């Protein structure tokens, strides 16, 4: 891929970085990143990846825009309330950067459909909000050997880790399986600061860019945690778990399965 004059101008502030350069920009334009969940994490990630010139962005989300999303899901605007999230996400991505090809998947990911989606991409961003989806992405990326960025946010806390499947610590190395249903309290106790989602989603996008260009050191074998109240970042070093049920020495998980959905006890909850 050869950069046009317009592209050289558009991306000049990152092409000027010697670690990126014209060659790095060409890599970005030919890379494909999938964002699962156009929510708090996926929204900032999609906006920055679009602006950076990632050539193909896939967006998975089965939901519609709700007024309570707008406090943090900055890719959706007030006029989008009621629209499919993938539609408003596509519109905003294309408005930012017409270089980007957008693929949308207005579906709920399951063990049946996830593999055929993720295998078309170079890198996956997990921007989902529930444990079964997080385990499903981890497992599917392991079987398809697609690197991904996992993240979770709650209240004022966030955390993320990048996984190179089969090579570095995976989500199941840390968390064997989803928490028991009884351990999950009602959603009324939760909540999240919008800017926290912006910080963590932007860090996920940073990992996708670094991976695509091939620069720096990825956030592998370490969980980065951030607390917005104390402004403390901590990097907890992790080792691969030889007893991991997925990528350990004696794996018990040998095919993709859906984990049981932990149902919130609040009616009409948007968590």
């Amino acid at each position, binding site marked *: 891929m050869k950069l046009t004059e317009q592209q050289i101008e558009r991306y000049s502030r990152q092409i000027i970085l010697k670690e990126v350069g014209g060659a790095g920009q060409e890599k970005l334009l030919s890379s494909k990143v999938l964002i699962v969940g156009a929510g708090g994490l996926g929204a900032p990630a999609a906006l920055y990846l679009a602006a950076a010139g990632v050539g193909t962005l896939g967006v998975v989300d089965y939901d519609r825009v709700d007024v309570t999303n707008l406090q943090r899901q900055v890719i959706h605007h007030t006029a989008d309330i009621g629209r499919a999230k993938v539609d408003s996400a596509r519109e905003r991505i294309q408005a930012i950067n017409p270089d980007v090809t957008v693929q949308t998947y207005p579906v709920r990911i399951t063990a049946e459909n996830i593999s055929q989606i993720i295998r078309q991409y170079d890198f996956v961003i997990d921007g989902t909000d529930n444990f079964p989806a997080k385990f499903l992405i981890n497992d599917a990326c392991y079987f398809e050997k697609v690197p991904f960025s996992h993240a979770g946010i709650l209240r004022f806390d966030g*955390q993320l880790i990048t996984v190179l499947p089969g090579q570095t610590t995976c989500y199941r190395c840390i968390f064997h399986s989803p928490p028991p249903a009884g351990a*999950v309290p009602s959603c009324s106790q939760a909540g999240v600061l919008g800017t926290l989602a912006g910080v963590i989603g932007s860090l996920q996008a940073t990992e996708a860019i670094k991976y695509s260009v091939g620069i720096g050191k990825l956030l592998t074998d370490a969980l980065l945690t951030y607390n917005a109240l104390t402004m403390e970042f901590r990097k907890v070093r992790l080792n691969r778990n030889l*007893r991991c049920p997925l990528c350990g020495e004696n794996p018990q998980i040998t095919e993709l399965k859906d984990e049981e959905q932990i149902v919130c006890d609040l009616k009409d909850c948007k968590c």
Partner: protein
Amino acid sequence: MKLLVNGKETSFSDGLTVSELLVEQNVKMPDMVSVELNGQILRRTEFDQRALQDGDKVEFLYFMGGGYEAN
């Protein structure tokens, strides 16, 4: 004995188990926590038996997804 818990050095009584440490640290929902001891993730079944030793490095790793509160 002294333990390094989530990066902070704190004194505890000798022979404390991982389960007891979770209580001492006011972790309200231990089911939402994975424990790394000296670089290795422990099995949940080890929490009750595993006695901690002076100088041990412990990390609590929290489940973080959406719609719950661990601590």
